[in-house]
């Protein structure tokens, strides 16, 4: 049972789980299913988030979701003038000039228009909340750090960029306060200069200090690659990426020849993975206490994938459950209910988070 001792679950597992939930949410407008998914995501976050700063971001995503729903409904009110159905109340229609043909403001408000807005907004809000759940459960920086060794440089650059943002905000605040302590130009453009020059100088100095610090600690030591090896790796990566691009394009454009679609995509992925492996094998770097894949990670991913698969099945086979009629109360099927609840299994499977003394 050592896999269930308090520890951090692999960040990739949480993200795959969240993507499964988001997929299910994107394939339905049934408010009952969507609320179920939001509920499941919330329960898992509450049960398994740590007390680190990023874990508190979940609330922000919930508020963002609420804002999305409200906005959608308001838009339907303002622009959805001619939606047929039960009229709830009549607002005066505001005529618009000819060049915005087909758009009208206000007008009679129907129950169906509001419900359509509500369902639609709820779908988007659920997707956002699922992403928020992943963010709260897994440190985004640790996710970046689990990229394959060949992409390590890019991962580090992203980590640094993420770190620099709060420092930048801090620097802006400091300079603004400092500039108020002295007299100087007050014109619109010149005042901007007063403000931008010290902030930029500060940012530049910081980046140089960081670059010097990283270099002095061995970042980017020569990995002993020969020119031929480097060329092979580069060629493999490029060919792989081209293959993936062509494959995705053909998959979406139904007029393209079919042999360019899935086969090309598959081939591209295989070549790109070969490139990554070839580059990664020659990297001399090691990783300190890497996150490990054990059965709880697999269970978390499985629960997310199960939710996604059930959502996809409902979308194909129970059309009225996935996209309920606006004129009647929505219903939920046994399959959809059980499918949604499967997501909560992640909370049971994942070990509790590590306690961190503040």
């Amino acid at each position, binding site marked *: 049972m050592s896999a269930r001792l308090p520890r951090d679950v692999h960040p990739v597992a949480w993200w795959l789980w969240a993507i499964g939930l988001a997929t299910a949410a994107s394939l339905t407008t049934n408010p009952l299913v969507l609320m179920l998914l939001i509920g499941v995501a919330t329960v898992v976050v509450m049960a398994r988030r740590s007390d680190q700063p990023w874990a508190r971001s979940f609330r922000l995503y919930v508020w963002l979701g609420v804002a999305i729903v409200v906005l959608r409904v308001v838009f339907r009110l303002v622009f959805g003038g001619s939606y047929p159905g039960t009229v709830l109340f009549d607002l005066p229609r505001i005529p618009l000039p000819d060049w915005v043909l087909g758009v009208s403001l206000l007008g009679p408000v129907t129950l169906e228009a509001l419900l359509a807005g509500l369902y639609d907004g709820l779908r988007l809000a659920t997707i956002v909340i699922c992403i928020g759940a992943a963010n709260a459960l897994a440190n985004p920086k640790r996710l970046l750090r689990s990229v394959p060794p060949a992409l390590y440089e890019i991962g580090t650059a992203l980590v640094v960029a993420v770190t620099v943002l709060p420092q930048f905000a801090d620097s802006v605040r400091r300079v603004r306060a400092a500039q*108020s*302590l002295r007299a100087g130009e007050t014109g619109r453009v010149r005042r901007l200069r007063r403000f931008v020059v010290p902030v930029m100088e500060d940012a530049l100095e910081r980046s140089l200090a960081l670059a010097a610090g990283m270099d002095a600690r061995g970042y980017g030591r020569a990995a002993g690659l020969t020119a031929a090896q480097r060329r092979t790796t580069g060629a493999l990566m490029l060919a792989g990426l081209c293959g993936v691009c062509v494959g995705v394009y053909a998959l979406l454009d139904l007029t393209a020849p079919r042999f360019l679609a899935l086969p090309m995509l598959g081939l591209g992925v295989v070549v790109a993975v070969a490139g990554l492996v070839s580059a990664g094998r020659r990297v001399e770097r090691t990783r300190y*206490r890497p996150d490990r894949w054990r059965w709880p990670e697999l269970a978390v991913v499985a629960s997310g994938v199960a939710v996604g698969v059930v959502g996809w099945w409902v979308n194909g086979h129970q059309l009225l459950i996935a996209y309920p009629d606006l004129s009647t109360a929505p219903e939920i099927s046994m399959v959809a209910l059980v499918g949604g609840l499967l997501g909560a299994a992640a909370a049971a499977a994942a070990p509790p988070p590590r306690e961190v003394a503040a």
Partner: protein
Amino acid sequence: MIELRDITFGYDERPVLAGVDLTIDDGELVLVSGPTGVGKSTLLGVVTGLVPRFSGGTLSGDLLLDGVSILRTAPRDRAHVVGYVGQDPAAGFVTDTVEEELAYGMEQLGLAPESMRRRVEETLDLLGIAELRHRDLRTLSGGQQQRVAIGSVLTTHPRLLVLDEPTSALDPTAAEDVLATLTRLVHDLGVSVLVAEHRLERVVPFADRMCLLTGDGRVQVGTPAELLAHSPVVPPIVDLGRAAGWDPLPLTVREARREARALDLTPPPQPTLVAAPAALTARRVTVSHGHTVAVRELDLTLGAGLVTALMGRNGSGKSSLLWALQGTGRRQHGSITTSDADPARLEAAQRRNVVGLLPQNASDLLYLETVDEECAAGGAGTRAILDRLVPGIPGDSHPRDLSEGQRLALALALVLVARPHVVLLDEPTRGLDYAAKRSLSGILRALADDGHAVLVATHDVEFTALAADEVVVMAEGEVVSSGPVRRVVAESPAFAPQVTKVLGAPWLLVDEVVAALETA
């Protein structure tokens, strides 16, 4: 172990180092010293390889590691031999928790996971930071950050540790902790240490050898006692020894005490403090950032014509208090009265005329290309004030090219041109050498004599002794002691300057001892 041979470095026509020879042996602590701007950081950079790669300039001569030249080796390929900790440790952090930061260097070197784990645990214990292992690096105090930065280069087991001003941002106690850690590394692990430091009084007792940059690009190398006899920059204790004619010069407080027993001095006359009219009165001022209370119901009176020093460990709320007194920082409770109005109720432009503040990072105030443009933007009279503070700064020079002290004076002139009655300074002594500190203390004294009330936040006990009339010591947002500088310094040994430590309570400054010696 590491040998610099005839190292010469310069930017275009301006030479910085000329024919420097220096050998660093195993298990030795070498102190690099000299006035501001003579190239101490450059010398350290040559050893780490960051100069000329990150600075530009031309470098000649040779750098040998066990007889093999590494002059053209990139810093990253020296990382397993040379560990470097910069002036601001927080600027060099790559990861976000202590444990990951300690492991970062080893990951780059490709060490096996088991030895990484072992070394991280050893280093956590060695530096006494085991309880910080999961902490976010940005939430650590200055002293803790410095120790983590040292730890993060130690894990790769370098043979030489290079530190640039490791204690300049630290309060006296944290500085002693960091220095004790360094000595322990030298003694227990046999690591060599090359350290540049302005505040010699902190480091000299620990140094095996000194490397003194004389200003013409050359260096003198020798034992601290030899070099300090003639050095232009010396700690107060050596000044005292020179004045009293002690030979050999004492380098530690203990040695000096033994010598001082022979001295028979009449105590200095106690200056009678006249009650100064209050220029600023703060009552029950409270500042909190979220759940942390930075300043808690604090009472403070600043007398016109007095210089008050504000001391306390890193994070004790000094900066928050200064910004609240200035009026920009929001206070939750309390009142501030000045001769004009509560500064918090004024517009920024009027606030400047009441309370002036020189922030910790003085260059945040500057944004133009030349000193003349800055003075013109500051308003009529700025140049005159600047010339009175530090005469002879060329008007066409770029503010970033000025020395630390000159840049500070320029920023101070821009603040003073609004003619505030109260002047607040936040850590102005960072990066200043003894001469610059002495002239800053003269500037503050002149301001006070003009009737200004001056409050200066500082970690530097020697500067406090030199410049202040009164001292306020803060801890956890509250005042723990306040009063005339002699009394406070006598009460808390941690804030006592070296002369007080050697000679006992009423003595504060070397100048007083010199005067007493002359009359005796």
